């Protein structure tokens, strides 16, 4: 009744949304059923529904295995590093770009800091290889020239969380600054005017006016990042680390782990991977609901939904 009337009345508008509704159904909702595989022993020929139920076996297998704690910790730790470093650098870039008065300088530098965002991770991968490669990589030549012992980067797991963070910041911080910059150019000049009359120094204006006004934006963007804390940056990590098992100890994340389980020749590979994927999706949902609840209590204006 009500529904049909509404659909009829705005049929053209609903028709315009229909392709995406169908698309999302097929490409997002249908694949969700694969989470069921976590409770089954999947045999592709039999399909999801025909395969045998095995209860919690796959989950037990994952949680009693040696890997799960490691990959989960790596995922969370790397994401925390990425969020902290990324936010700080993006903010710095936005605040400082805002101080630059020469239009030409500003235009050129802004184009340059955004540039790395536009290239594929494969190109970054190649750069990283050429810079950090064994003896003849650029970085090692440099280290050698100033008289230190070259490091075999691709065999040293301990440095990679930090190197990945640097690469992440290099690739994304300039791009991330756009939203901050766009927000802060919208702030009313009056705040600064009155602060100047009170004798506020430039950095005091940044600290006591710009930053507090940016707070909601910072919170929302950080929340969005935290909501995805159980999702590794597959492109960045797999693109650079690949299957180099020497570095798994510090860089293997849930996504790369699932990918490898899926690709393994193990008979139960789909179900094992599905158990990991289910764990990831559920944890992701819980985190985002938690952070949203948390922010709603602290600062209702900044909540996501």
């Amino acid at each position, binding site marked *: 009744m009500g529904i049909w009337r*509404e659909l009829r009345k*705005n049929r*053209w*508008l609903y028709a*315009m*949304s229909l*392709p*995406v*509704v169908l698309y999302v159904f*097929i490409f*997002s909702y*249908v*694949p*969700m059923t*694969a989470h069921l*595989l976590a409770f089954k022993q999947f045999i592709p020929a039999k399909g999801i529904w025909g395969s045998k139920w095995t209860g919690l076996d796959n989950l037990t297998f994952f949680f009693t295995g040696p890997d799960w704690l490691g990959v989960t910790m790596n995922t969370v730790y790397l994401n925390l590093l990425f969020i902290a470093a990324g936010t700080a650098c993006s903010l710095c*870039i936005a605040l*400082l*770009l805002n*101080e*630059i008065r020469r239009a030409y*300088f500003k235009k050129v530098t802004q*184009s*340059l*800091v955004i*540039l790395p965002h*536009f*290239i*594929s991770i*494969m*190109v970054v*991968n*190649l*750069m990283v290889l*050429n810079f950090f490669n064994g003896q*003849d990589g*650029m970085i090692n*030549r440099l280290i050698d020239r100033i008289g230190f012992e070259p490091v075999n980067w691709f065999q040293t797991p301990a440095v990679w969380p930090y190197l990945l963070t640097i690469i992440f910041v*290099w690739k994304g911080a*300039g791009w991330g600054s*756009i*939203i901050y910059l*766009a*927000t802060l150019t919208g702030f009313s000049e009056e705040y600064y005017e009155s602060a*100047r009359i009170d*004798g506020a*120094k*430039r*950095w005091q204006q*940044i600290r006591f006016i710009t930053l507090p006004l940016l707070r909601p934006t910072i919170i929302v963007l950080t929340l969005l990042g935290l909501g995805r804390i159980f*999702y590794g940056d597959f492109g960045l990590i797999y693109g650079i680390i*690949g299957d180099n098992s020497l570095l798994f100890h510090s860089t293997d994340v849930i996504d790369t782990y*699932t*990918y490898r389980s*899926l690709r393994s020749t193990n008979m139960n590979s*789909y179900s094992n991977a*599905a158990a990991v*994927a*289910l764990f990831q999706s559920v944890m992701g*949902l819980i985190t985002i609901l938690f952070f949203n609840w948390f922010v709603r209590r602290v600062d209702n204006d900044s909540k996501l939904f």
Partner: protein
Amino acid sequence: MASNQTRLLENSARSKPMRPAKQRDMSQLAVSAVAYIFIGAFSLLCFIPFWLIYIGSFTAESQIVQGFRMFPTEFSLDAYRFLLQGSQVYQSGFVSVFITVVGTSGAVLLTSMFAYAAAHPHVKYRYVLSFYIYFTMLFPPGLVGYYLLISNWLSLRDSLLALLLPLLFSAFNSFLMTSYFRTLPFELNEAATVDGAHELYIFFRIIWPISMPVIATITLFYALTYWNDWFNALMFIDDPHRHPLQMMLRRIISNSQNLNYLNTNVNIPVSATGVQLSTVVITIGPIIFLYPFLQKYFIKGLTIGAVKG
């Protein structure tokens, strides 16, 4: 005496606001100096790797093995000659251009139509539509379902559709557009409806022209996603004839001994590094030339879409 006093008064009247002004200038100057130095340094850092790759790709073989240089030493086009005489680069180039053009057009059309409906105040279930999309971000389907969908259920292995379909819609882009459309004055719509215009006519003839910033932004985003995609190729494409450029690049990086992959039948002594660098230049070429022109649009589009959206 009197004139002296007035001069003193004038001086003090003038110098009183002068003193804080001078301090302000100093702090402004210090902040500016930090800004120019930091931003200058960071943008150089962003630029140097590209510079090294461009220079490297034009450098003679004998020089490149000695490491990258900031300035060209011995100019050579051998790496490009080698690359461009093979057939793989044309096949992959075609695949990349094809999926980028077709995919982006389709994606922009679908996304904008959906976003328009989801933003339209007459649509009673517009928030249901938004939540329907939003939920897929809260609870993503996971890699296994995605893999099964493309390779088993839709049987798209080794098909160009496996590169086209998965990227046809992005929830993030859709939200950006929706919040942009929400800022448009609705009176436009009403006036046109009163004149008897059809919804589709209103959308394509009235809404599109005034939404150019956001449409340009979304076009760029989709185009980049398609152009830079390697994940779907890695998962679903085994046939080298259907490898996009990014996958070709991955192939010659991860298996650098095997330049046969490029199907070159000429004999030029080149190293893997030289060929990799020239491939990178060809891969990122179009983007570097395109994006400075679009920058104005996407900063505007992002601003309107994302700020308090």
